[in-house]
């Protein structure tokens, strides 16, 4: 079970409260987690990553275990603590504005 944290606007869009819990059948990577997230919540397609290129949107960040994983390759394994459900995989709206 993977725990995913969403920013407030995307929680509203997906109509969820708190963390999302996902069963990811294969190894936990950014790609497999986001695939599972978008399969469960289709309205999130295009809001975290581009629907065609699958690239992370510029002002979205991925944090876990107090690390910034935003620039990791999408098929890099996530930390064991995320894969085991001990820590959440956080999708964050980047700090922007004044």
């Amino acid at each position: 079970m993977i725990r995913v944290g969403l920013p407030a606007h995307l929680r509203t869009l997906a109509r969820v409260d708190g963390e999302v819990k996902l069963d990811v059948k294969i190894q936990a990577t950014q790609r497999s987690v986001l695939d599972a997230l978008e399969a469960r919540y289709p309205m999130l397609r295009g809001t975290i990553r581009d629907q065609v290129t699958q690239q992370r949107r510029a002002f979205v960040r991925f944090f876990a275990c107090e690390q910034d994983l935003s620039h990791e390759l999408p098929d890099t394994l996530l930390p064991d603590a995320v894969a085991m459900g001990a820590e959440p995989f956080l999708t964050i709206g980047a700090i922007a504005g004044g």
Partner: protein
Amino acid sequence: MSGVRVLVGTLKGAFVLTSDAKRERWDIRGPHFGGWEIYHLKGSPADPNRLYASQSSGWFGQLIQRSNDGGKTWEPVGNKFVYDGVPGTHQWYDGTPHPGEFARVWHLEPSLIDPDTVYAGVEDAALFRSVDGGQTWQELSGLRGHGSGPSWQPGAGGMCLHTILLDPSDPGRIFIAISAAGVFRTDDGGTTWRPINRGLKSEQMPDPHAEVGHCAHRIAMHRSRPGVLFMQKHWDVMRSDDAGESWQEVSGNLPTEFGFPIDVHEHEPETIYVVPIKNDSEHYPPEGKLRVYRSRTGGHEWEALTKGLPQRDCYINVLRDAMAVDSFDPCGVYFGTTGGQVYASADAGDSWAPIVRDLPRVLSVEVQTLP
């Protein structure tokens, strides 16, 4: 007709304002999609309870929302806008070729006859259509591909396709406007397109009379005369009496020819409205006086409408999609400002009152006259 519904898109959400036919007391609902930019929302002429909204964010991209109950509840529908084939290039601000890249939906235009068919004008400029209620979108790529696309340039707000006019007398004819490319027309339902800018003159271009490159801010028509078009250009108010084949300036005695919106009275095809703005860098009314100008002669002769509007210290703007009319008699006229006010006139512009004063920056105003 039972009442009126005003659909307001703002920088931080959508608002739905409703009133009865007197248009004196208003119920204000919102914000819907709080915190998101709502560039435009509009109802289907074929089903007034079917609404579409363009919801976007610099963080999370583009969404399309649909309502089947007049805006009480909404559901996200399809948001996959993929250019047909190679996106191609347009001119960047420095004149170099720049790859086309989807940014957002500026304008949604529901079909006149089918609630499930809706057009979307997007940035970078292109036209999309959905025939399944917004679930899937297909580009009408003949517009970008007709030949002049590589020479289009973005205006300061981005290279947006911001106006879509459907000809009620000819289902194959559509007019669109792009900043800063100009006006284009199809006569075959969107397969082929051609520019219709003859008569426009733009001193900001190397060739002021070029076929494309004009910054048409907004075009409007009256449904009874779809061959007559009115345009608020970057500078100049224009009209065409031959479906865009040629244009004539009708700025007349306006205090400034610059502005963004233009609209036509619901029952008087020669009565038109504009909001003159000082110039293209000072985006506020001349002399700090908010004045709508009305021409009852299709242009040339204009009168200032000031009753109920601030006549001092007013430095707001009225954006291109932020004016609309209702179908009552007398005709109601509405506009929203970058200062968050939505003004309404229930007497065709003779007098005005704010419906609401403190919304976020208003990006669009549409009106539905309810059966």
